């Protein structure tokens, strides 16, 4: 596939632009934050997103989805990054539907995926246990007892867990990577406690703790560590797509400002030092676009070098979005620092996305290792 959108994807993206601009502008998210909304997103807005098919893009047609693929979902995430609309799209769709697609049993897929596509079910993935992303350091245990598993341990940074109906928990049944397995846990389960936290980006991620939570064999997923690693790769690419949207929006607003704002009697955009920095940001964004579309394509086309592309995309976008959010504030000067302007929202969301599933350094390191050095 060429590194361009096909007609269907172009159409989808342009309808997403219209949707987010009209229904979920940044002011809407600001309002949710200011009123300290307990849900953290607008349920009716998510219903409209579901209506438009966003929740079913990566779900097969025979499971109630549209099977449009990850290039398509990536476009939604990118556009979403421009207005920062809060929704469970990442937790339920990008993460959890992908887990089920790759690791679910036939039974799990056929019952749960349609509910994700229809927005009736919200799922969260509970995998992190530490402050830094680390796929193999899993201390949460799943002990087999007869026909059941007993889960013990705790998880942090579980996106949107405060509104989830079910949680996919990564736990260890034995030593080694093959002992790392996935379990479906109902949020009502005895022994499970959920502590909602407020993150820097004013979204929600929670800590959970599991004390002797009993799970039936049928709630164990079919796939294990290998599938989970693929989920991480796909998630990293999806997050990179959102970071691309943030970077573009912050950049475009900054360029507009450079043209409008006058100092010393001239437009500050006429200062060559700022022009060159703007040009360099432009280049970084163009490069970022290339790696994101390439990596999204790799998911849909099952390329063998997915991990390498995922690390390239996550690492590069982490750097690009950091550069652009910092420069946006600096070039706006004092008002860029005020909460009244929107750059606080962009930089905060960017830093959380950078940390999620591994920061640029984690992925740069992994890229080098994947290349044998």
């Amino acid at each position, binding site marked *: 596939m060429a590194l361009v959108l096909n007609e269907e994807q172009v159409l989808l993206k342009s309808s997403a632009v219209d949707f987010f601009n009209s229904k979920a502008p940044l002011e809407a998210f600001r309002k949710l934050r200011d009123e300290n909304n307990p849900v953290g997103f607008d349920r009716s807005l998510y219903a409209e997103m579901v209506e438009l098919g966003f929740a079913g893009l990566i779900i097969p047609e025979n499971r109630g989805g549209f099977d449009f693929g990850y290039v398509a979902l990536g476009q939604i995430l990118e556009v979403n990054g421009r207005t920062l609309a809060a929704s469970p799209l990442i937790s339920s769709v990008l993460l959890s539907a992908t887990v089920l697609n790759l690791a679910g049993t036939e039974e799990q897929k056929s019952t749960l995926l349609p509910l994700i596509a229809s927005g009736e079910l919200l799922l969260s993935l509970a995998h*992190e246990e*530490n*402050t*830094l*992303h680390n796929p193999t350091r899993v201390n949460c245990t799943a002990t087999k007892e007869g026909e059941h598993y007993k889960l013990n341990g705790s998880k*942090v*940074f579980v996106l949107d867990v405060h509104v989830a109906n079910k949680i996919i928990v990564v736990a260890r049944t034995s030593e080694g990577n093959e002992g790392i397995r996935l379990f479906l846990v109902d949020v009502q389960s005895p022994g499970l406690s959920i502590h909602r*936290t*407020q*993150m*820097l*980006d004013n979204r929600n*991620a929670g800590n959970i703790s599991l004390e002797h939570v009993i799970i039936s064999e049928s709630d164990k997923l079919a796939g294990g560590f290998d599938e989970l690693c693929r989920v991480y790769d796909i998630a990293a690419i999806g997050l990179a797509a959102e970071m691309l949207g943030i970077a573009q929006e912050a950049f475009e607003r900054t360029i507009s400002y450079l043209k409008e704002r006058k*100092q*010393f*009697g001239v437009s500050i955009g006429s*200062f060559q*030092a*700022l022009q060159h920095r703007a040009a360099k940001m432009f280049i970084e964004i163009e490069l970022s676009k290339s790696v994101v579309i390439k990596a999204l394509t790799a998911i849909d086309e099952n390329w063998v070098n997915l991990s390498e592309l995922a690390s390239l995309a996550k690492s590069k976008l982490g750097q690009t979005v*950091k550069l652009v959010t*910092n420069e946006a*504030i*600096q070039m706006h*000067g*004092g*008002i*860029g*620092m*005020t*909460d*009244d302007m929107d*750059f*606080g929202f962009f*930089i*905060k969301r960017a*830093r*959380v996305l*950078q*940390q*999620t599933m591994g*920061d*640029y*350094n*984690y992925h*740069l*390191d992994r890229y080098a290792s994947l290349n044998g050095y």
Partner: protein
Amino acid sequence: MNKEEQDIFRAETRAWLESNCPRSMREKVQEESDYYWGGKNGTFKNEDQKIWFERMLAKGWTVPYWHKKYGGGGLSAIENKILNEEMASLGCRKPLFSFGISMLGPALQKFATEEQKDKYLPEIVKGEIRWCQGYSEPNAGSDLAGLQCRADDMGDYFLVNGSKIWTSYGNKADWIFCLVRTDFGSKKQRGISFLLIDMATEGVSTRPIKLISGKSPFTETFFNNVRVPKENLVGELNMGWSIAKYLLTHERQMIGDMGKNDEQVKTHNIAIEHIGLQNGILADTILRTELAQHEMNEAIFEMTIERAIDEAKAGNNSGATSSLFKYYGTELNMERMELQLALSGNQELVMDNPANQNGLLANAMLRSKGNSIEGGTSEIQLNIIAKNILGLPNN
């Protein structure tokens, strides 16, 4: 003052401090209210703070190097240095902290009439009046000289209209020292005057500014037909720019000091704690590279401060100017904050967790983005170096 006299003064000073500075006033300053800021509504945080202030005031040591006629301590430069050294060595807090002492006072000493000095300086020494600064405006950022807040000469008073932004503690101050435009016809820098305004005057109001890092000490300050007596003008009419420039250089040096990592905690200790060592080196070798680069520059920046001081002492003109310190110091601080956040991971991104002081580091990172803007942007500092030091031509 010969060596012997110095030693005597030092011994006496130390003895006095030891017996007069309450124990709690020797503890490390944790927050803004650990200092007494004075003012009409000034409140003491605790009894010790009050005692300490009053004892120091009685000796004129709230501003020890100002003349006794203003209530200052009348200390010579060398005596003042000895006092500072002894206070630092015992860990004594400053008894009074204010922009009156650090900013307005020096300007008044240099530019005001005797009458003005007699009126304002003693109030500052006694902490009776709390001052704030009114320079920046929403539409005059780096181009400070482009300010629009106007003072029209109405015969026996000025009528002030306009607004100021980035007034630190504007909502807590009693008076504000302001740059206002008094002549719209002439060249930008001409036509600016330096005015002292009582914030209790009718027509003055403030509005707090929320930053991306949360609450801030900054306000916007609005002037709506505010009548200001003619005698509140400092220096000549339309010549306020020279006062402003004098104060800006002053301010820049204060901000540039941020590049010095005063924290006891070295960033690499945070790294070792969160990431750990593997075969003796930091397990994340990418961050290790950045960290080493950062700490190298931090160490060399501190040597540069040291060298600049030594060169100044030796009477040499070192190339290391306040613009260099402002620029590089703030760049280092911003880099340090980003690095610490990257090293610490997701737990520092939780904003409602007492364990991380509710996102203290994340907010500090966000706040640091303003360092390279306030007190003259990084771009302005580079312009100054290019033009004033390197002599590169204007466009």
